[in-house]
């Protein structure tokens, strides 16, 4: 096999752009939490944007290359090193057979994306190579990488080293991070004043933040509009008859700590949701570390669609910039 995992990092998984189509059976889309960074990494090494790469959380792996490849690392500032010599992020570089790819300490962001020319070749399961660890599905044997794992790589792409994504086109959360939210779903269950507080407060990412969802702390608890709980919902005012959870939806169990569901979302459950983070801001969540300050910003559908359009335009600029370097 072309790549041997010497050390796995903290929770390194094989991811691509995900596995749509099975959410109705509780199998979530999975795929890179920061899809923009994953696409950029693939573009830099000449892969299809949806090729499988590695998602590394907080800490990088150590990989021994047994055949030559072009590599790019995007997303979090997690400096790659080839045989100990640092390489820039967001820029493709060559790793020769016998060399070791390792990583320095995390400087900013939360998840780095490693693309390797040809793409990681694990079996395609339900249309994707993404790992869904909770369901032991896809990726490398349905789990995070472990020391000694051997990874196959697909046929070499149109690779070139020294390609770069200009700094102006990279995208990371601000300080505090601002997540734009379309209120809705069970928004009517809380009072107007409580809704204003939700958007006015500054929240912090809790330690319980993973691919399933990000929990936030520090804002005021919700105040519910009184009602007799509907049959089947459960007795807590935050309970609903178990329903589907949209990706990005913000549930607030007990009215205290909001949880934003992400790529490995649980597909449904019995907690009310106050709204949904817009699609354009989902990637940003993947780059937020625990204790990061965050605000939820109320937007309408027109703003959500404009943001989505802007993000597509940004990706087009990356495509143009990478193909000319």
């Amino acid at each position, binding site marked *: 096999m072309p790549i041997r995992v010497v050390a796995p990092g903290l929770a390194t998984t094989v991811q691509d752009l995900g596995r749509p189509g099975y959410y109705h059976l509780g199998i979530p889309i999975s795929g890179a939490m920061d899809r923009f960074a994953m696409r950029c990494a693939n573009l830099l090494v000449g892969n299809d944007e949806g090729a499988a790469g590695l998602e590394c959380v907080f800490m990088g792996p150590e990989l021994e290359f047994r055949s030559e490849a072009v590599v790019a690392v995007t997303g979090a500032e997690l400096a790659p090193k080839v045989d100990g010599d640092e390489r820039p992020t967001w820029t493709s570089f060559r790793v020769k057979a016998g060399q070791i790819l390792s990583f320095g300490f995390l400087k900013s962001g939360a998840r780095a994306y490693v693309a390797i020319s040809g793409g990681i070749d694990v079996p395609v399961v339900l249309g994707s190579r993404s790992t869904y660890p909770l*369901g032991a599905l896809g990726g490398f044997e349905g789990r995070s990488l472990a020391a000694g794992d051997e990874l196959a790589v697909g046929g070499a792409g149109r690779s070139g080293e020294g390609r770069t994504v200009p700094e102006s086109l990279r995208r990371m959360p601000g300080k505090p991070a601002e997540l734009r939210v*379309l209120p809705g779903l069970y928004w009517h269950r809380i009072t107007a004043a409580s809704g204003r507080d939700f958007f006015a407060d500054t929240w912090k990412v809790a330690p319980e933040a993973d691919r399933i969802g990000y929990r936030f702390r520090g804002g005021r608890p919700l105040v519910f509009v009184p009602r007799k709980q509907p049959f089947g919902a459960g007795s807590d005012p935050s309970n609903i008859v178990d329903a589907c959870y949209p990706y990005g939806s913000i549930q607030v169990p007990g009215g205290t700590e909001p949880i934003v569901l992400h790529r490995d979302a649980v597909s449904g459950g019995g907690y009310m949701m106050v709204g949904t983070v817009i699609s354009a801001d989902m990637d940003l969540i993947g780059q937020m570390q625990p204790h990061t300050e965050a605000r939820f910003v109320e937007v309408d*559908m027109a703003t959500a669609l404009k943001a989505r359009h802007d993000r597509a335009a940004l990706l087009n600029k990356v495509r143009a910039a990478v193909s000319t370097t």
Partner: protein
Amino acid sequence: MSTRYSFGGDEHVFVEVDEEMSLEAFFKSLSLTNAVRASSIRGVTEVCPANASFQVKFDPDVIAPDDMLTELKRLEAAAAKAESRIRTRIIEIPVFFRDPWTTETLMRFRERHQDPKSTDIEYAARINGYDSVDAFIAAFTGSPWFVSMVGFVAGLPFLYQMVERERQIEVPKYLRPRTDTPKLTVGFGGCFGCIYSVRGAGGYQMFGITPMPIYDPKQEISYLRDFMVFFKPGDIVKWKAIAREEYDAAVAEVEAGRFSPLIREVTFDLDEFHRDVDGYNRKLDEVLHAH
């Protein structure tokens, strides 16, 4: 019942058929999701039925959110009456109640429970007015259950008891969710039963365990070779209480690739069911055990 529509961000429409759970709400949600699938509206990427609601995921680059909403409302208006007859299957699921594994787990999380002095099933029996756990199990296994939703995690069925509302079992969820639940635990929360398809966190009360796997990502188990998820919404389940010896034997059968669940095709008619609940459920039992 009044249908409520709401956008879940720029990629989902959330449709609540009713605030409260009922078989009528479930049938309407099931028939509307079938109508959405059949209509092949451009831009729809996922159609997810739930207990008394459903969700459609769409690509707003292909169809504008307001147009998506209009299409769904048009379908709802066209389906003046929800389909009340479905072709489905009835499946017997063996359950080892009060088993050692869920008992060990529930003892570990006693401080998160409403009643730390009793077990989950003792608590459920008491608050539902049963004299004994055995009487509670008799009621639990006495009627069939509808799979009203599949989800939370891969392949997990939510089950709704097919009896009049006044006879329905209701139990609150744990005060704080557990961080662990054994795989194949038979759980209960609100008015829903469930089977945990994988090991993991959970907030439902734990009553027992089934030897029958319902999710197999490797697709090695004989009856999961065609697809890794066993249940689909609309399936009917009949529980069968089993003892330790039967449980062990079934696990051995599963491991040897010889276990085959008892499954029968059946037509379910909601109106006929309501006319005589117990009589109808007896007929379903006869279908299940017919030779």
